């Protein structure tokens, strides 16, 4: 296939934590709000002149400093964020919106705060407590926490408009981006898809880590390009999978999948499209903040939700995605040292296989996966096993 429009530019943007679009938006008076988790509703960080940046640490190398401050048994993502902040790579962040939902993640912002790592006179932070089950009083707590710890400081200290109208405008913009992704996602259902897993992963990442206003024009053009793009004549994909799991912002992971000729039909991981790149429905009869908070709580797929209905919802979401996107199997990936996904990966690798009949591979991985021969070998073996299953069923291509 010919190169996707802007794909090289997107790759270039993803090389930096503070990319040129972020700096440009800041020059235009934007307030950069860093965040790391779906528990912090992205759309609310895009009210008024604020813009969200889902934090990454591309080109992470040594983690020696973070190892001293955070020990070596902490997940690579959080250590990489700390290391990047320590190096001065996060000085662009004006406000750090965090949640006390993953104890490792919240320690990043606490370390940053205590060690005064962000060299930015405007720097501030907010940390929310969030429930791990759905209930009316849980919705209330979640909404109040977001209002008091995130929106209020944004309004009071940065002059951000967080009114109902501003939230609705942010939702409209979010929905436009999501509509683009929904259309692109439909293309992944094709037998011989016109977009590769690596490309989709890159699109997702830029949409999360660049200001909406800056990235939207590019995404529109990319969508136009995709509408007329033709897939290669030969279908090179040997298997289709749903990838499920923890934070994954290294698109080399998808490249490894591609090299094993395994097509990622749906991405249900943090920084993936499910959830996060779906349109948020709003009605006029209820404050937008309440609706947005309820939406994020109900669609959240974090394994931290420990009530039975959410546990079942997570499994059924995987099953439904596998059905909808014609996946042959599921890959559940876990960032090393992530307690939540350590258990979820272990249990669901068996449950999805035994109770839902979906061939499932469970893997753990480092934050940076580039050059992981072990991962490549496991993917190849999984793809072969899926092929064998297809042949045994009599429906596989030779």
């Amino acid at each position, binding site marked *: 296939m010919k190169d996707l429009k802007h794909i090289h530019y997107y790759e270039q943007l993803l090389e930096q934590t503070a990319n040129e679009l972020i700096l440009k938006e800041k020059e235009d008076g934007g307030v950069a709000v860093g965040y790391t988790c779906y528990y912090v509703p992205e759309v609310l960080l895009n009210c008024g002149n604020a813009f969200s940046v889902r934090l990454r640490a591309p080109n992470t190398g040594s983690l020696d400093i973070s190892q*001293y*401050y*955070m*020990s070596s*048994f*902490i*997940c690579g993502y*959080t250590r990489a964020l700390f290391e990047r902040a320590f190096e001065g790579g996060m000085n662009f962040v004006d406000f750090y919106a965090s949640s*006390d939902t*993953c*104890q*490792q993640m919240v*320690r*990043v912002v*606490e*370390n940053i705060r*205590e*060690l005064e790592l962000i060299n930015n006179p405007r720097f501030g932070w907010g*940390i929310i*407590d969030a*429930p*791990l*089950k759905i*209930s009316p*009083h*849980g919705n*209330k*707590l979640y909404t*109040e*926490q977001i209002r*008091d710890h995130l929106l209020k400081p944004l309004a009071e200290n940065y002059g951000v408009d967080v009114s109902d109208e501003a939230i609705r405008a942010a939702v409209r913009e979010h929905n436009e981006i999501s509509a683009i992704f929904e259309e692109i996602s439909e293309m992944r259902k094709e037998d011989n898809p016109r977009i590769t897993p690596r490309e989709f992963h890159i699109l997702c990442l830029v949409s999360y880590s660049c200001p909406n206003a800056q990235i939207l024009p590019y995404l529109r053009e990319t969508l136009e390009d995709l509408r007329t793009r033709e897939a290669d004549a030969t279908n090179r994909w040997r298997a289709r999978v749903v990838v499920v799991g923890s934070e994954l912002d290294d698109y080399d992971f998808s490249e490894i999948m591609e090299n094993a000729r395994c097509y990622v039909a749906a991405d249900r991981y943090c920084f993936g499209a499910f959830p996060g790149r779906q349109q948020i429905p709003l009605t006029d009869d209820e404050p937008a903040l309440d609706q947005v908070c309820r939406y994020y709580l109900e669609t959240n797929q974090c*394994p*931290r939700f*420990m*009530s*039975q209905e959410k*546990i079942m919802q997570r499994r059924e979401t995987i099953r439904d995605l596998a059905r909808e996107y014609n996946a042959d199997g599921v890959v559940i990936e*876990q960032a*090393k*040292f992530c*307690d*939540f996904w*350590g*258990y*979820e*990966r*272990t*249990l669901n*690798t*068996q449950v999805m296989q035994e109770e839902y009949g979906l061939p499932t591979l*469970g893997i*753990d991985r480092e934050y940076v996966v580039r050059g992981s021969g072990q991962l490549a070998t496991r993917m190849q073996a999984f793809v072969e096993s899926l092929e064998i299953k297809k042949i045994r069923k009599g429906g596989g291509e030779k």
Partner: protein
Amino acid sequence: MKKKKGIAANLADKTAIQKHREWRGGRDTAYDYLQWCRLWGILIKWAASHPVQNVKAVWRYRWMFSYLTVPSFFDRLCEGQRGAGLRGARNNLNYLASDVTKTLTTIFSADMHLHPGSKKAEELNKKIICVDELLPNLLGKGFPDCKMILFQEYPMYLPSLINQHSPVHYIEQSEIYGLPADVCPLPSFEAGLAIEDDFPKIGCCMLTSNMPCDGSIMTTMLQERRIGLPSQVLNVPLRWKEEEVQDYAIEEIKSAIAFLEEHTGQKFDWDALKEGCETWNRQNECKFEKWDMNRTDIPPHTGSSAWLYRIFEHQAVAGEPLALKNDLKVNKILHKQVAEGKCPKTIRHRAVLWNTPCNNYANFNNWLLNCWGIESVCEMIDIHGEDLIDTSSRESMLRGLADHYQTSTMRAHTKGGSEVMIDSLWEKYEEYNADMIIMFDQISCKGVGAINGLFEEGALKREIPMVRVRQDLMDPTSITRREMRNDVNVFMQSVMGEEPIDPSLVEFDDDQSW
């Protein structure tokens, strides 16, 4: 060959079992011996009450073997103790033994693994409420006709303290199942028990929780699946210092009460709860007195028998009149020693011990004192639940209970923001007039590991001697007791430049010890 002197000379090589009872002077040895006999009395009474059932339990459950070694465990926790400390320890431990044996009888009488198809056991189970072991069971006082049992306390937590090898098999089972080896051994042990089907099959419903950490949240999911009881999560807020989360905490308790009413068929008894809370308040006041006494130059009761009892009292026997009776008795003994101004121990350093202690080396405090004269005047695990419950109305009791949960064992410091754990350390250091810090570096505790550097820099800034002691909570295969001692030995010799009080304890082999 010159005969070896010191405490270690009385310990068998590798197993560290005492060759004979420790000589503590006439009166203390006699007291210790009598209390030891009292313990045997408790155990024999328990064993003889349901002999067949108890033998079946020992054969059915691997963890039950650990309970057979309790006399040795108590001896270890009293090693080197004299005077009021010894008396306090023995009384606390014997009360604990007495209560645990009673609960074990209830558990085994209802256990459908031991009594398959038994109607009697089925009836008993209708009145048993299982709760996550880190949810204090004071709420159960509102169901006086039911027994609230800390589900993991008896198969997991206590055995991990009594016998350092008890977690190993279960942790291995979790890892064979696929759980990562880096998760905390506590939830991993619990998961192993569930995988092995080694939890007693009891209860009519289960109250789970997010206490105290991410690992515990996740192991609950695995356990619920295996246990199969109707369950509900009691979601305890994390930012417990904030007033805004309190309404949520109260609503969660109300919701839990409704769930328990539904599954037990019992109406919640607010008067019984009030009585329980008032008893608990008096128990808590006894603890406050103990903390006060430990701030003096003669800290009368410190170490494992103090913190273990505190945990047990807070979680399992809050509101129990017999526990209060024991508290009053112990405090009387302790007050007497403080009033007399006698200190039967050699204390060189007053240390604050921070982070969770090591279950597989519960008598580490005894070793610190006996070998290096380091007295554990304050321990993080001992300091929680510092407020009394206002029993003037239902709402105030709910508020108090919410606080009781939020400031429960372990999470009182590890949750609520890093400042809660860090600032509190410097405060306690001053408050207890300490001169050093023993920082447990529990390698698999991610929430605390992620603020390691802040502790280091804080201690450096304040010029406080701080020794970092590596441990893995309840997995002796990661870090042994010997390695823990070595961390202290190296620090005391090379940084502090000191000689041990008892050189026999500097280096000895107890890897095979229970």
